[in-house]
């Protein structure tokens, strides 16, 4: 009973903290809407890491992330008067970030192609035997780096919108409901987009596997 009560109070305190932070964010937004730049600076400090992290995962190049983040926050500031306080601020911020990253990638038009090097057996096993290798701490560091490089090449070959969707889902761990708010789409539309992105990623992976098979033959 004691254990249950303590876990309940812990959950309640987490909930209170979360709701407190949400209220504080809302207060900050309200101040920003009244033109308070100090409040905006505080808001930037609160969310800068999230924006940097997401932009970095989508653009995959550290050099441009700061410029993108600056653009994101500038757009955010000028569009804050239109923000409704009952809406989700984080979803809105994610949406601006994703759009800014996609715009940037479209302008750059420098699509990174999947590396021509073949897939090693360990890499193939890593991706296919889900879960068995991922937690292995004994895995060789060079192999880990190789796997990361391969996965990075595969992910970078996806169109920006699909990459953003997969990053938000798998890396940022957003739920389907949160993705619906970010992309302003219905549940079924999000699921269809996710399925297409996954299918494209798999076909890129298979193309590499076939190339490997062809070279061997």
């Amino acid at each position, binding site marked *: 009973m004691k254990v249950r009560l303590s876990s309940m109070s812990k959950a309640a305190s987490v909930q209170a903290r979360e709701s407190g932070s949400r209220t504080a964010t809302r207060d900050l937004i309200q101040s920003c809407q009244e033109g308070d730049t100090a409040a905006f600076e505080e808001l930037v400090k609160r969310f*800068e890491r999230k924006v940097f992290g997401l932009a970095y*995962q989508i653009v995959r190049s*550290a050099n441009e992330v*700061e410029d993108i983040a600056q653009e994101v926050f500038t757009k955010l500031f000028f569009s804050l008067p239109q923000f409704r306080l009952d809406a989700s601020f984080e979803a809105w911020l994610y949406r601006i970030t994703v759009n800014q990253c996609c715009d940037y990638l479209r302008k750059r038009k420098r699509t990174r192609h999947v590396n021509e090097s073949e897939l090693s057996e360990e890499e193939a096993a890593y991706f296919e035997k*889900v879960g068995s290798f991922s937690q292995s701490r004994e895995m060789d560091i060079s192999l880990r780096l190789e796997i990361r490089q391969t996965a990075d090449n595969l992910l970078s070959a996806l169109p920006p919108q699909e990459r953003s969707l997969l990053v938000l889902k798998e890396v940022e761990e957003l739920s389907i409901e949160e993705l619906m708010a970010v992309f302003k789409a219905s549940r*079924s539309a999000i699921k269809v987009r996710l399925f297409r992105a*996954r*299918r494209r990623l798999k076909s890129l992976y298979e193309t590499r596997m076939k190339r490997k098979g062809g070279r061997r033959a």
Partner: protein
Amino acid sequence: MNHRRIKDWIEEYVDHTLSPQKALEIEQHLGGCSECRERLTLARMTRQIVLAARLENECAPGPRFAHSVVGAIEQQRETYLFWSPVRLLAIRAIPLMALLAFILAAVAYAQFIPALSASGSEPSYVESYLDCSPASEQERFMLSNAAGAQDSEKALDFLKQQHSESAGSGR
């Protein structure tokens, strides 16, 4: 349980956000449905790729990033405030412009389409201006026969008649 519904729940199943009851139903269905099994494998495999590609967060903002953002905003604020009413006006004007374009198109249609359909019976303004239509009966006749004139006899009689008439009038 419906196959379509199960297929729709695969994402939630992979995320472990389904109730144990639903998860059990999916597991029972997966045993006999290769399409759903493929979907599940696809979701798990691509998750593995995306997670493996996750970049370490070596790209953190500098300590003065927020300050520099506010500075950049201060610089842009005047330009933004100058263009803001224009932008707002432009956005509000879009439906009005669309309505105006529609009215103009309707007027143009009402004015020109009847004129075009009537042009088959009467010579158009352009034709009468250029005066390129055959003027006399003779010209008309000759033109009508020019393409494939068969009745040359009749044409000769007609020309003779015309000639005699003009000679008579000349006297």
